[in-house]
């Protein structure tokens, strides 16, 4: 028995393949959109994975440090280390800022961490960890900084000693890791003009600059020029410790807020990126519907273009099953070409996107199943139309 579908395709294969490629690019866009959505969620999860923390301790009644500002005294970790079950603690600060680089500026999230404590970036793709307690930095690849490059942050120059990958804030800004004390200084210290102005302002205040009390002004100015806060204390727990128990203990007795990884995911995904994720998800749904509709129209019109041929087939006594099989096979073939082209295209252009695009195999399988289902569905509509064709159309038409 001859394969009608194959013969028909080979008869006009150019048209068929180009239709498939066009369809494939559309599917590629849809898959990419799904990848962008997944990437957004994954960025949030990657953010939680960077420091290797089990618990995040932040200012009371805040959803810090990612979703809300949070300030904790930097000696709070000492009290936290005393809580049963806590093995390691590390102070971490976050500050989103612009860093000058090669004439332009790069938007980065400046992360201050203590080397050797939770909050340190775990994996480098190049270079080495920070070994000096000042003026060294580890940068995410996406910042564009290179190893051994000197970058200027506020008033000091830092040497980039290591590079990381996929260390981005929930907003997608690449991270720049520096030692905690440098980060605290950056967070607090204004530019020099602001400092001088601030000093003059304090000196002009008679309460701080009294003639009979030498040294008072200097003391006040010194007290203004120090920052002793961090944004979060990351805790690593001893093995087999129930994190919810420790979190409850900290909430109750240390008067700070403590979030477990599950809480953090909830905050990040349900609160912080919820709107943008929903936005993209909505777009994904619409794109899928539109793609499905276009696939259906293409298969339908493809069938209707062959009215005369089908009528001839009917006239020579082809069975309905043969005709239906031909249309269905063509539809599925189109779907398969489209999916392969789409998946390839999406995979190839994913790394070019400025933000992370995560193409999950599960999504691809689901996409393939959906494409095939839509093609089958569209074929059925087309088959119904084909079966209604009058064989007389072959001669009369």
């Amino acid at each position: 028995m001859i394969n009608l579908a194959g013969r028909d395709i080979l008869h006009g294969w150019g048209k068929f393949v180009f239709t498939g490629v066009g369809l494939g690019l559309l599917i590629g866009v849809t898959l990419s959109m799904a990848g962008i959505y997944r990437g957004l969620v994954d960025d949030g999860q990657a953010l939680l994975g960077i420091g290797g923390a089990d618990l995040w301790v932040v200012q009371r009644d805040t959803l810090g440090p990612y979703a809300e500002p949070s300030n904790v005294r930097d000696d709070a970790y000492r009290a936290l280390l005393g809580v049963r079950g806590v093995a390691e603690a590390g102070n971490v600060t976050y500050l989103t800022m612009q860093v000058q680089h090669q004439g332009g500026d790069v938007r980065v999230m400046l992360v201050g961490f203590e080397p050797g404590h939770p909050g340190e970036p775990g994996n480098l793709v190049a270079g080495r960890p920070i070994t000096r307690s000042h003026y060294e930095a580890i940068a995410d690849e996406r910042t564009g900084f290179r190893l051994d490059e000197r970058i200027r942050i506020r008033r000091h120059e830092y040497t980039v000693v290591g590079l990381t990958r996929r260390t981005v804030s929930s907003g997608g800004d690449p991270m720049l890791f520096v030692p905690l004390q440098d980060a605290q200084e950056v967070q607090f210290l204004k530019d020099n003009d602001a400092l001088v102005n601030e000093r003059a302002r304090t000196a002009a205040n008679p309460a701080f600059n009294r003639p009979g009390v030498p040294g008072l002004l200097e003391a006040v100015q010194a007290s203004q020029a120090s920052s002793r806060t961090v944004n979060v204390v990351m805790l690593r727990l001893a093995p087999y410790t129930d994190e919810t128990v420790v979190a409850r203990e900290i909430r109750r007795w240390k008067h700070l807020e403590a979030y477990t990884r599950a809480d953090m995911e909830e905050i990040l995904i349900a609160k912080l990126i919820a709107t943008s994720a929903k936005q993209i998800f909505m777009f994904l749904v619409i794109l899928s519907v539109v793609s499905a509709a276009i696939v259906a129209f293409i298969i339908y019109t493809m069938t209707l273009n062959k009215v005369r041929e089908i009528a001839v087939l009917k006239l020579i006594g082809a069975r309905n099953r043969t005709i239906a099989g031909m249309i269905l096979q063509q539809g599925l073939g189109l779907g398969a070409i489209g999916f392969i082209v789409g998946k390839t295209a999406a995979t190839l252009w994913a790394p070019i996107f400025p933000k992370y695009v995560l193409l999950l195999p599960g999504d691809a399988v689901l996409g393939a199943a959906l494409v095939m289902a839509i093609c089958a569905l569209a074929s059925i509509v087309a088959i119904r139309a084909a079966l209604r064709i009058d064989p007389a159309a072959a001669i009369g038409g």
Partner: protein
Amino acid sequence: MNLRLGRKATLIAVGLGGAALLGWLVMSQGPLAPTKVTVATVEQGPLVASTFGIGTVEARRSYALGPTLASRVARVLVDQGDVVKAGQLVAELDPVDLEERVASGRLAAERAGSTIRAAEAQLAETQSRAQVAVSAARRSADLRAQGFVSQEATDTKGHEANAAKAAVDASAAQLAAAQRDRDRALADVAGVGKLRAQARLVSPVDGVVSARLVEPGTTVVAGQAVLQVIDPASLWIKARIDQGQAGGVRVGQPAEIVLRSDPKRVYSGKVERVDWVSDAVTEERIVNVGFAERPAAVPVGELVEVTIRTADLANVRSVPTAAVKRVDRQDGVWQVSAGRVAFRPAKLGITTLDGRSQIVDGLDVGDAVVVHSERALQTEGKVTVVPAIVRAAP
């Protein structure tokens, strides 16, 4: 028939090709792809452990010169950077009435001198009067013995002699009092003179004026500094070293000093003091480092970077620090075998500033360890070894 078979074969080949392309893409590009890693081997060689800190240039000996009394500054004779000698007058405070008080004291002393002279004259007079009275009384007593004068007359003469002697005593006492008066007045003069001397600020050492803090006309309180003088030979660095890295720092260790104003040049130095008291708030230890040769002009307060060599290890095993990971509170490294990774615990020693970690135990020379990886490694995870994950800078 052949033609048909050929077409069928083409179709199948195209289909297989498509599936293979898809399979390759899924396995090599997406999340299922093996993690790219780079490896390095354990090396044997010398390691230098150092610790790094930042600090400021300070003068070990700095003298704040100020008055002991609240007063107004009259003159400031030197400015920042001036070289001064020990004992040189550097500033003067307004003495207000101190000069007049000295003059008044002198006058009082002179007046006391006059009183002394008057008392001496009076004493001479009473002494002479007493001599006359005593000889008159003696004569009267002789005459009475021969019966020429009455007993009454003799008694009168005796009384006059006694009274004259008492008058001598009184005059002597007055003279002594007058002398005390003069001494007191002189002591007053000396005291006020010392106060006057305090109003002159002199440098206690040979040094350089590092700060001129107030200008003439300013009123300063007791103890407030007018000028600051430092001994430039005593310049050293007050470096703050993170407590976590300060463990190996000892007095006498060599150090390298880089000034912020001259970052290209490295000065050599030596640890001179390690503070006994650590800063509990900043969690830093204060370490003082002296210059081996003092830079020509170094502003006090300038930021410096200090690198202290804390240990020299001649022949030890080491790996890049980026290879060292912590899994389940245990230090170790990842190793690749047959395309999969496994964690191997190792005991670590020192870490150098250029990023090498000493292996004390657990690994042998030549063992390959994973240095960089695209993402966090999992036990038994698939990896491919590549020369570099990030393309090197052009």
